[in-house]
């Protein structure tokens, strides 16, 4: 029977072959996207793993000659540079991954992107931070991305041992450092929830293309004696054959476009092409799972109809969904709301609280979707004044599960991305980088982990001589540990950073002259410090603050001078917002990923809907064509089809985005005590573009309506 089914699929005439090609093409697109999603997950994982490997843990004691290692972050124009200082303690020291040998003192290796940046930037702004000789380029095995800015600088053992974060490694790259699980869970959740589900829905829907025609053929087979079981085997075989061909094509498409896909900065940084790889398990799951799933989908779809020798009888009215489907949704929202003001202390505890809440809402949306569709459709049907709205609403109310199935992917994708975008927008708004050109953006400071007894006058002079620098100030350590950490003579406070109260000689100030979480202000009045001007000079220096005109040249030159003067910095000389800038860049990367998911999932949902439209039209070609013969304008029928697909899709989009924002608000309030900041126009524009693309795909099926409801349908069927 399987052989017979195969013969029917591939040699069953032109119609069978056309059906096979259409289904295989649709499955190819779906399988290709599935492979991209899986490879994307692997690529993100590889990127994060290599990023984590830049921060290795110390090896256990007892190895031979350890490699001394210290990782710190530096910044250049808001981008993060990972600086790794290394020193081999002997012949047996391991060599860092990605370079042929450990650099000696005065030698360094650069990542390709940093090499390019150095070549394009005046040396005083960046290259001077790495005195010595460039030995070569860091290989991709050590880089999270082709865009990564990494430098590996060689030193003596004593120099590295004195640096912050110094550790000894007896092996390098052997133990992959563990990734923070919450991050990985979040990423996997975003990608899986946002894209995998729509892809699987699409593949399932694609295999049901031309289901009505196929069922009629099966009825004819029943007439000549085929048993229901034989029909099931034939249907499953046909579907699996098309899915095998489609999956093979999907693999071909994936490997053909892998390089181009890797070049898209989904996470804000490009991937190496080799990172977009498939594990054997991925290959196995897709190669076997898609055809098996297709066969299963065909079998399930046949269970929904009764194929007798006299024809196909569709189940008249499937059981209506009940209101209990709302329970998980309500529980999820309640769970997140409960933890407002009760945030668990540990990150594991937070994950254990927030992830189930979000997953409950996701599951709740999928479960509640058919019920909501039914209620909406019933309301629409009871109020419909036009025949198109009436027919569309009745069809949706009749089988809301089928109506919702094709758009459930949109719901999840839009929910997940709305949560992500809501959270990201709010964090960026609350912790974003300093405004370009502001005093904050032009303030470079370096704080000493070990207070300096004094600061060389030559250094201050060098800093003041940099074009664009307006002030260079050494802040002394405040002996009053309860007050602001710095003290400064009132006469030395640069005008842009405030002044002292009248009659005060020495003020207590912030180490960077900009209080944490606030902005620099010329009107700020610093409080008096319990230090006399005479004692001030004897206090150790806590930090140096350079005020510039906020031009990148003056900021970066100041940073370079300070880095060279104090190479053992714990935190690199920085401007307020450097860390935030890097952090928000990362967040923007995720935002971009979310945008990609929105457009891709809506496009996919459009394809799924288009398949449903075609299926629905095939099922109703006779009543529709007879309605048309009876004078019903084609535009009415077009409106029926458009309403059946577009109304639930748009309604679901609104519900999903709304629920996403509700969940984001609950999460932000509970986790960070932030209030949701509405995403910018870009988000809505992307959603609208995605929805428009989706509607466009649906519209592309409408010419079929005119074709299949012509007079010949009434004659020939």
């Amino acid at each position: 029977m399987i052989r017979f089914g195969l013969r029917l699929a591939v040699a069953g005439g032109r119609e069978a072959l056309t059906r096979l090609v259409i289904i295989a093409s649709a499955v190819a697109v779906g399988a290709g996207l599935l492979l991209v999603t899986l490879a994307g997950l692997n690529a993100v994982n590889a990127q994060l793993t290599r990023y984590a490997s830049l921060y290795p843990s110390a090896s256990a004691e007892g190895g031979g000659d350890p490699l001394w290692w210290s990782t710190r972050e530096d910044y250049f124009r808001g981008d993060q540079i990972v600086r790794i200082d290394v020193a081999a303690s002997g012949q047996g020291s391991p060599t860092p991954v990605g370079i042929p040998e450990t650099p000696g003192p005065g030698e360094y290796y650069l990542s390709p992107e940093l090499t390019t940046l150095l070549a394009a930037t005046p040396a005083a702004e960046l290259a001077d931070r790495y005195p010595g000789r460039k030995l070569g380029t860091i290989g991709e095995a050590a880089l999270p991305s082709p865009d990564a800015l990494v430098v590996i600088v060689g030193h003596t053992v004593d120099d590295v041992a004195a640096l912050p974060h110094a550790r000894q490694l007896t092996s390098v790259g052997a133990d992959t450092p563990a990734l923070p699980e919450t991050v990985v869970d979040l990423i996997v959740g975003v990608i899986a929830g946002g894209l995998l589900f729509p892809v699987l829905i699409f593949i399932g829907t694609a295999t049901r293309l031309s289901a009505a025609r196929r069922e009629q053929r099966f009825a004819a087979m029943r007439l000549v004696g085929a048993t229901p079981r034989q029909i099931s085997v034939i249907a499953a075989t046909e579907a699996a054959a098309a899915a095998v061909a489609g999956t093979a094509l999907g693999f071909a498409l994936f490997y053909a476009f892998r390089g181009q896909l890797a070049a898209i900065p989904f996470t804000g940084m490009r991937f190496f092409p080799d990172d977009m790889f498939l594990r054997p398990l991925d290959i196995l799951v897709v190669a076997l799972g898609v055809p098996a799933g297709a066969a299963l989908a065909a079998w399930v779809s046949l269970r929904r109809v009764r194929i007798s020798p006299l024809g196909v009888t569709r189940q008249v009215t499937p059981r209506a969904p009940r209101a209990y489907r709302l329970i998980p949704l309500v529980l999820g929202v309640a769970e997140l709301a409960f933890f407002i003001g009760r945030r668990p202390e540990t990150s594991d505890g937070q994950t254990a609280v927030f992830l189930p809440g979000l997953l409950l809402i996701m599951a709740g949306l999928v479960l509640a979707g058919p019920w909501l569709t039914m209620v909406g459709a019933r309301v629409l049907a009871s109020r419909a004044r036009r025949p198109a709205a009436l027919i569309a609403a009745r069809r949706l109310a009749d089988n809301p599960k089928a109506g919702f199935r094709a758009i459930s992917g949109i719901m999840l994708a839009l929910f997940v991305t709305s949560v992500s975008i809501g959270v990201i927008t709010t964090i960026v708004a609350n912790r974003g980088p300093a405004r370009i050109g502001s005093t904050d953006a032009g303030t470079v400071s370096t704080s000493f982990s070990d207070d300096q007894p004094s600061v060389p006058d030559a250094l201050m002079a060098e800093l003041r001589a940099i074009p664009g620098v307006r002030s260079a100030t050494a802040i002394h350590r405040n002996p009053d540990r309860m007050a602001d950490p710095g003290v400064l003579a009132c006469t030395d406070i640069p005008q842009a950073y405030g002044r002292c109260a009248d009659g005060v000689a020495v003020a207590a100030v912030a180490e960077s002259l900009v209080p944490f979480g606030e902005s620099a202000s010329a009107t700020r009045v610093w409080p008096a410090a319990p230090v006399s001007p005479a004692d001030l000079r004897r206090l150790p220096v806590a930090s140096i603050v350079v005020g510039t005109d906020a031009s990148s040249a003056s900021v970066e030159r100041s940073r370079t001078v300070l880095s060279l003067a104090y190479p053992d910095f714990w935190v690199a000389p920085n401007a307020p917002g450097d860390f935030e800038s890097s952090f928000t860049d990362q967040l923007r990367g995720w935002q971009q990923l979310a945008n990609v998911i929105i457009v891709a999932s809506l496009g996919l949902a459009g394809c799924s809907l288009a398949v449903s439209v075609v299926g629905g039209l095939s099922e109703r070609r006779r009543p529709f064509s007879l309605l048309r013969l009876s004078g019903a304008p084609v535009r009415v029928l077009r409106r029926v089809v458009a309403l059946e697909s577009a109304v639930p899709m748009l309604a679901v989009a609104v519900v999903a985005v709304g629920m996403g924002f509700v969940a984001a608000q609950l999460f932000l309030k509970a986790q960070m005590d932030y209030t949701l900041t509405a995403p910018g126009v870009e988000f809505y524009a992307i959603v609208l573009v995605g929805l428009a693309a989706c509607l466009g795909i649906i519209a592309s099926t409408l010419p079929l309506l005119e074709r299949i409801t012509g007079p010949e349908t009434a004659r020939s069927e």
Partner: protein
Amino acid sequence: MTIAIEARNVVFSFGQTPALRGASLAVEAGEIVAIMGASGSGKSTLLHCLAGILVPDSGEVLFDGARVDSMAEAQRSSLRRDRFGFVFQFGQLVPELTTAENVALPLLLSGVRRAEALRKAYGWFERLGLEGLEHRRSGELSGGQAQRVALARGLVAGPEVLFADEPTGALDSLTGEQVMDLLVTAAREQGTTVILVTHEPRVAAYADREVIVRDGRVNAPDRIAS
């Protein structure tokens, strides 16, 4: 008597295959005419040309003094919607709608308000012995019931001409007779002209007149005494 609808020397081909080779037929207002003929003789094609579904390659179709064959598609659609009614062999009900909504559909398509359309539709249920089936779906009806609902739908808008293409073709003889009884009675009550395509003499016997289509031409016009 006034001629309600007329075909004059109508020629129509499906590609290279001729279906009508100069068919002529005049039907008087209020008359019930049965078009008979063998399979492939062109009887359904003649009905489709008369109803403005197909446009003849040559010849004329006149309704109420106007040339149907030269009307634009939109005009012909409007004619079919507002002044004609149709009953086909099977499968004409929209499966998602209730039977009452199916019957009301032509009125809704003509812009009648929903409540008014449904009120008129309900009136036909009693008349055709369909009481209690108003809220059923087409899949829940027997063949005879479905055909009576289709008949109600064909007549609800008060058409001047009802076109019936093998209306009993999918029914057993007893049910077919019941449907024909109802069709003829309702048409006579409304004064509706009926053009009926059938290959069954029993069905044709309900007509005032029977014409035979053979090789694309209407032969032996014959009036049956009523």
